[in-house]
C-alpha cells in the first residue's frame, strides 16, 4: 500500500510541476517580441485581418484570461497552430516524433549499456590502466559537443572510411527496392518485424552514427556516476563478505555490487535523458534526421513560437515523466528504499 501511496503522492506533485511548466511556456510565448497575429498571417496580411485574428486568438484579453484559455485548449490537446505550416502544432510534432524517439531510444540504450560497462570496468579495476582508460573515455564523452562530434564522425566515417552514410534515415532508393512498412514508426524495428532484411540493414546503417553521437554525452555521465557508486559499494562490508565466501571478483563487480550501485546511478539517467533530448536537436541537424530537432530549428528560424513552445512543453513533460519513472524504478530496484519520500 505504501508503494501505491508513494506513486500517488509523487504523481500529484508531478502534476503541480506540470502546471507550473505550462505557466512558463505560456509566458515565454507571450514574450515573443513580434505580434503573434501578424506573424501567423504572414507578411502579406492586411492590418484589419491582423486585428481580426488577434481578436480571435484572444490576444486582447488580460493575461490570466489568456492563460486559462491556453490551458483549456491544452487539455484538449490543442497547442495552437504552427505559424509557418498553419497545421496544428501537435500534428507537426507527432509527424516528427517517431524519428526522434527512435534516435533517442537507440542513443539512450547505447549510453546506458556503454556507460554502465565503462563505469563497472573502471570501478572493478580501480586505479589500474583500465580505470584510467575508462575515466578518460567518460570525460571525453562529456567534453565533446554533439554538434562537433557529429561532424567529426562524418569526416572520419563517411569521407575517409566510407563506412556510414552522411545522414538521413534511409537510402532514397529504399522506398522502391524494399520499402519499410510503417507499423510503429521506428524504422529499424518495423523492418525487423516485417522481415524486411534490406530495410533493416539500411535503417540501422543510417541510425548508427547519429545514435553513437547522441550517446556520447549521456554515456559519459552514466559512466562517471556508475564508477563513483560502484567504488562506494565495492568498499562495503557485504562485498567483503562475498569475497570471504570465495565469490569471484567478476561476479562481485558485475552482479553483486552492480545491483546495489545501479540504484543511485540510475538517478543520473533522468538527467542524461535531458542532455540526450537537447543533444538530439544538434544530431538531427547534422545528420538531417527528420525529427523534432529539425522541426524546432526551422521553427527558430521562422520564429514559429507555438511550435517552439510546444516542443519545449513536451520536452519538459518527457523529462518530468522520465524522472518520475526513474524514481519508481529506483524504488523497485532497492528493497530498502523507503517510499515515503
Amino acid at each position: 500500500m505504501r508503494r501505491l501511496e508513494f506513486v500517488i503522492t509523487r504523481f500529484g506533485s508531478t502534476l503541480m510541476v506540470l502546471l507550473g511548466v505550462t505557466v512558463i511556456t505560456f509566458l515565454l510565448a507571450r514574450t515573443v517580441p513580434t505580434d503573434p497575429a501578424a506573424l501567423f498571417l504572414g507578411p502579406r496580411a492586411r492590418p484589419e485581418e491582423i486585428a481580426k485574428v488577434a481578436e480571435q486568438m484572444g490576444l486582447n484579453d488580460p493575461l490570466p484570461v489568456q492563460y486559462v484559455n491556453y490551458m483549456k485548449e491544452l487539455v484538449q490537446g490543442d497547442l495552437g497552430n504552427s505559424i509557418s505550416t498553419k497545421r496544428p502544432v501537435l500534428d507537426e510534432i507527432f509527424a516528427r516524433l517517431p524519428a526522434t524517439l527512435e534516435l533517442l531510444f537507440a542513443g539512450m540504450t547505447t549510453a546506458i549499456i556503454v556507460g554502465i560497462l565503462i563505469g563497472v570496468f573502471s570501478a572493478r579495476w580501480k586505479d589500474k590502466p583500465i580505470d584510467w582508460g575508462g575515466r578518460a573515455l567518460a570525460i571525453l564523452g562529456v567534453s565533446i559537443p554533439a554538434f562537433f562530434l557529429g561532424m567529426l564522425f562524418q569526416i572520419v566515417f563517411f569521407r575517409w572510411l566510407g563506412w556510414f552514410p552522411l545522414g538521413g534515415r534511409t537510402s532514397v532508393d529504399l522506398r522502391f527496392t524494399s520499402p519499410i512498412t510503417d507499423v510503429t514508426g521506428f524504422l529499424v524495428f518495423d523492418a525487423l518485424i516485417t522481415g524486411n532484411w534490406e530495410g533493416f540493414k539500411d535503417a540501422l546503417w543510417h541510425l548508427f552514427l547519429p545514435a553513437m553521437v547522441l550517446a556520447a554525452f549521456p554515456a559519459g555521465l552514466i559512466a562517471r556516476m556508475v564508477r563513483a557508486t560502484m567504488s562506494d559499494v565495492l568498499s562495503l562490508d557485504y562485498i567483503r563478505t562475498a569475497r570471504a565466501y570465495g565469490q569471484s571478483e567478476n561476479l562481485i563487480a558485475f552482479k553483486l555490487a552492480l545491483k546495489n550501485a545501479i540504484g543511485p546511478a540510475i538517478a543520473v539517467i533522468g538527467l542524461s535523458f535531458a542532455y540526450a533530448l537537447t543533444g538530439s536537436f544538434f544530431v538531427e541537424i547534422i545528420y538531417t534526421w527528420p525529427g523534432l530537432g529539425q522541426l524546432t530549428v526551422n521553427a527558430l528560424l521562422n520564429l514559429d513560437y507555438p511550435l517552439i513552445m510546444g516542443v519545449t512543453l513536451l520536452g519538459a513533460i518527457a523529462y518530468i515523466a522520465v524522472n518520475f519513472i526513474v524514481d519508481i524504478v529506483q524504488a523497485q530496484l532497492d528493497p530498502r528504499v523507503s517510499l515515503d519520500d
Partner: protein
Amino acid sequence: MTDRVHSDGTETDAAATQPGSFRQVVAVFTRDRMATAGLIIVILFYLIALFAPILAPYPDEGAGKPNASALTQPPSAENIMGTDQLGRDVLSRIIIGARPTLLVPLVVVALAILVGAPLGAIAGFRGGWVDTVIMRTTDLFLSFPSLLLAIAITAALGRGLFNAALALVISWWPWYTRLVRGVAVSVRQSDFVEAAEAIGLTKMQIVRKHILPNSVTPIVVQATIDLGIVIIAMGGLAFLGLGTQPPSPDWGLMISEGRSVLLSSWWVATFPGIAIFIVVFCFNVIGDALRDVFDPRTRR
C-alpha cells in the same frame, strides 16, 4: 535521489561536503598532475581570450572581415589553420572568438551563482514558506532540460549573444540555489549556528558569516564543472544561430559555418571544434579532481 543529481550528473551531497578552505583547493593542484595540466591549459586559453587582438595574426579577419582573394584555403604557412569560406584566417577567428566563447560562460556562471546562491542560503536558513516558495520555483525551472529552456527563452527574447547569455543564466541559477540550500540546511543544524544565535547575530549575519563561506568550496567545484557545460551550451546556441551573430566569431558559430564545406574543407569546422573540446575537457579534468577531494561520496 534524483533531487541531488547535479547539472553535470554527479551527486554532490552538499550537506556532507566539507567546508574546505581555499588552501585545500590549491592543494589539489599540487598533488594531481592531470588537474594541474588542465588548469594551465585553461588559464592559457583565457589569457589568449584576454589578449586576443594582440595575438591574432589577422585581427581584422578574426573579427569578421572577408578576404575575397583567399577563400577556403587549406592550412599553409600564412594561415596555419587554413581560411574559411569568406577567406578569413581560421586561427585568428579562433583567437578572437575565444572571447565570446570563453568569457561569456564565465559571466553566465558567475551570475547564476550570484542569483542562485543567496536564494539557496535564504531558503535553507529561513525554512518554512520562504523555503517552500523558493524551492518550488527552483524545481519548476529544473523540470525543463536546461538547454531546451535556454533555447525557448532565447527564441522568445530574440537571438543574440546577450539574450543567449541571459537565457543561460535563467536556466542555470536553480542548480546553485539547490546546492547552497543543502549546505545551509546542514549548517543551520550545526552547533555553531546555535552559538551564533545565542550571542545575538542576526539571521542575515549568520547567512553571511557561516552559510555562504561554507558554500564556497562546493560552489567552486560545481562552477568548474558547469563552466564546461555552459561553454558547450553557449556553443550550441551559437550553432543554432541563437547566440553570437555573424560575422563576429564564436567557436560554436564557426563549427556551424564550417558545416557547409565540411566535405571539401574539413579544417574550417574541425579546428574550432578541437578548441572547444580541449577547454571543456580541461574543465572536466579539473572538476573531477576537485570533486574527488571535496566530495566524500567519491573519496576513498
